[in-house]
């Protein structure tokens, strides 16, 4: 059995892993795990990842979780082009810096934007107050400003002249609120131009394919009541 990737493209980190593997021609078996059907909570999947999350990687006897760790693993094992995670000490540190920063900032805010705007009302049937939604979108806005001012600045990509893992992680995060109908790139020409560059570097077709699911998030059928019950506590913990 070769490399297996357990993914649901509804999830931002799954999209980053999917795009990276495909873009670099890394052969893998796609193992779909449908989050909206609660498949990540099954006993079978717990064998792969006891933390019950996606993405997960299985390579023979070796299993791995956490998208950043998975991307670094694929990067090292498959000898991909240097620009994804440069050998140069300082260039590499820049990527590490972004990958560390984003967990509690952009990732968190993009997740909250999607869930407060779309997933809670549409999928879980739970209304979200306008105040809560406004607060969430304001936090997202502030983080986008930081992304532009501290990381992108006047560079072509987040950490330098070439696309890296940082850009891949960032763009897949930003597509979350886009999928929720938030105009993330409106009024932000620098960010919009960066997005075009990232899409071009990844390949437009691959980028669109990876984002088909999230762009249809608003059309999620309502959750099965039993599944909703199982999902709620974990969702609430995830977005706090």
């Amino acid at each position, binding site marked *: 059995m070769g490399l297996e990737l357990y993914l649901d493209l509804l999830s931002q980190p799954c999209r980053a892993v999917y795009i990276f593997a495909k873009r670099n021609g890394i052969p893998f078996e796609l193992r779909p795990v449908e989050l909206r059907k609660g498949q990540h909570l099954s006993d079978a999947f717990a064998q792969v990842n006891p933390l019950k999350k996606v993405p997960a990687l299985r390579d023979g006897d070796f299993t791995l979780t*956490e998208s950043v*760790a998975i991307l670094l693993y694929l990067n090292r094992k498959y000898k991909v082009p240097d620009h994804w995670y440069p050998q140069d000490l300082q260039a590499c540190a*820049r990527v*590490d810096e972004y*990958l560390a920063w984003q967990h509690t900032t952009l990732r968190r805010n993009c997740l909250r934007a999607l869930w407060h705007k779309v997933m809670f009302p549409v999928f879980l049937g739970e209304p979200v107050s306008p105040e809560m939604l406004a607060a969430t979108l304001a936090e997202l806005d502030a983080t986008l400003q930081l992304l532009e001012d501290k990381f992108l600045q006047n560079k072509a990509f987040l950490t330098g002249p070439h696309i890296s893992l940082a850009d891949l992680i960032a763009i897949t995060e930003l597509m979350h609120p886009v999928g929720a109908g938030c105009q993330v790139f409106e009024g932000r020409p620098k960010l919009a131009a960066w997005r075009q560059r990232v899409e071009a570097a990844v390949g437009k077709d691959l980028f669109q394919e990876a984002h088909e699911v999230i762009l249809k998030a608003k059309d999620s059928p309502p959750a099965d009541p039993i599944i909703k019950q199982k999902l709620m506590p974990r969702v609430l913990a995830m977005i706090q």
Partner: protein
Amino acid sequence: MRQRGLLPCALLPAINVLCVLCLSPASFSPTSEQNLEGQEIFRDDTAESHHHSKEYIEINPLKKLPSLKDGKFILSESVAILFYLCRKYSTPSHWYPPDLHTRARVDEFMAWQHTAIQLPMSRILWIKMLIPRITGEEVPAEKTEQMLTEVRTNMQLFEEKFLQDKMFITGDHISLADLVALVEMMQPMGGNYNVFLNSSRLAEWRMRVELAIGSGLFWEAHDRLMKLAEWDCSTLDPMVKEKICVLLQKFR
């Protein structure tokens, strides 16, 4: 603003102490010391307000600690700083093992810990100690209990998934993962809350990590944290105090 020199890997815990220094009293008393390579380094006893100062913002626009400045190169995020130091100084390989699978385990923990360990541990310190101390009010018991339950759950996950029956996270030797894990888990000690009490396996691991670092260095790095209870917060900048009162409202 003192310029930070470079810290050798033996003093790595000090980097994490810098995270705690943002909680220290509003007094600026720089200390300088010699590191193992005989280079002079400066540790910045930065106050709450100090790392919001204009000079510091030039170093780190995110207004956070720790920061590294190496000539013109500035770096934030402790995980990134640790990797940079390991690579630049070719530290012993056990800190960040070159083996593909072992290294992946370190990366996995380093990624997971941001939300699973660092954030909740820091919240305990705020909820149990800093907010009550600064605002004079307690956080509602329900929220406190919720926080503590989350921490207990994650400590269990840490034990079952990352540590298991091994001596250290990657096996027989200490790595960056153990270092980061332990300094984060020590945070609640500043508020007199010990997360190691419920599990002898974790308590033993904690001791092993302390000994591998060296008890002297370990407790030196944690000195400020352990003395947090003695902090006279009346010296705190009133604007900062106001921000913390706003933070308290989020828990109501």
